[in-house]
């Protein structure tokens, strides 16, 4: 059985170590927060917050307190607030230990595309380009194939890039792969997923 969304998030949470400052992207990466367990992790929200708490109880939403996905959230007793310039100062300045992001395509050299489909989807990169350029460890969490069944792990990206050679590790529904010299290396397979199956759904070179 390939991993479902929650299992992918649970696997991604294993990438986080005690004491880390971490930025989680929108979608499956947001679910990673549910699986950090006892680890002392501080979540950054790039709109200007360190120490992001859970969603508020009904009736306690605060319009002045949202995350980068524009969802209402809460603060913790460790929380700090700052402006967008300082927020990206800490991102660009390498102070954030890890970023977990979604992707449309990843190439075997670590190139990442996740911000636009020309002529179709023009939303913008938000903070993704800054994050992949500045954060120490970039982990992509995404489905191995797109809705049409085509692989998202390519020899080279076809969509406009978010960053070049920036991805360190990829967690898909089929397994975990690292970007290494010469291509991707299989680190782990999801339960009952064979290496042949993963290879058959991957265009990128597997070393």
């Amino acid at each position, binding site marked *: 059985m390939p991993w479902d969304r929650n299992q992918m998030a649970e696997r991604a949470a294993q990438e986080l170590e005690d004491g880390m400052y971490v930025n989680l992207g929108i979608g499956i990466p947001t679910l990673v927060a549910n699986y950090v367990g006892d680890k002392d992790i501080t979540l950054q*929200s*790039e*709109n*200007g*917050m360190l120490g992001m708490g*859970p*969603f*508020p*109880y*009904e*009736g*306690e*939403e*605060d*319009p*002045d*307190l*949202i*995350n980068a*996905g*524009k*969802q*209402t*959230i809460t*603060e913790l007793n460790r929380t700090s*607030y*700052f*402006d*967008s*310039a300082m*927020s*990206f*100062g800490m*991102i*660009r300045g390498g102070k954030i230990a890890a970023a977990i992001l979604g992707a449309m395509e990843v190439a075997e050299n670590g190139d990442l595309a996740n911000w636009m489909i020309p*002529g179709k989807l*023009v*939303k*913008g*990169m*938000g*903070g*993704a*380009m*800054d994050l992949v*350029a*500045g954060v120490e460890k970039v982990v992509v969490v995404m489905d191995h194939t797109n809705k049409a069944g085509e692989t998202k792990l390519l020899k080279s990206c076809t969509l*406009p*890039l*978010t*960053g*070049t*050679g920036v991805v360190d590790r990829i967690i898909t529904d089929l397994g975990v792969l690292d970007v290494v010299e010469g291509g991707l290396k299989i680190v782990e397979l999801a339960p009952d997923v064979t290496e042949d199956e993963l290879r058959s759904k991957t265009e990128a070179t597997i070393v």
Partner: protein
Amino acid sequence: MQKVYPNAKAALDGLLRDDMLIAAGGFGLCGIPELLIDAVVESGVKNLTVASNNAGVDGFGLGKLLDTRQIKKMMSSYVGENAEFMRQYLAGELELEFNPQGTLAERMRAGGSGIPGFYTKTGYGTQIGEGKEVKVFNGEHYILEEGIFADLSIVKAWKADDTGNLVFRKTARNFNPPAAMCGKVCVVEVEEIVERGALDPDHIHLPGIYVHRIIQGEHEKRIEKVTTRSREDA
């Protein structure tokens, strides 16, 4: 020094003209200068270039200025929540200059700090880096980005005193300080103007030197995505 004005229209009097560059604070609908945006709509000024992380939503925030076609060009990082924006852009009716979010914030901060350009790794090797000067520092590639020098800044803060010292609240701070810094003139709307001395000088987020005009008003503070947990889950 008289910085306090009775309302948004009065505070913008004499500051608006066609073809100007306006820097606006806010992230999504959080901390946007909604009263000043409404006054810009009412003024009818057009061909505006607006530097703002987002473009509001349909019918609220900067979305109102899109509906009235007063904006010629947006400088933004994310415009995904606005169907009218997308329509105008895909139809070629609106210019859009995508800026990575941190680059946009730093361009504002730099402009307000007298820095006309800076180098950043962000966007190197992507469309964003095309046509920009590349420089290598310690073996890594950086692109030259330019400071933003706006004609006018419109921002939202929580509290101000009459000298323009500002305090923001929670994540509503976001782009407001850098946007405030980069304008020749900065107009601020707040929820409350307090007595001098009521704000702790150690807790001022943006000093009044950056602020030229202030208004106090009622804010709708619309929430874009209400997300909650139920008490039963606790």
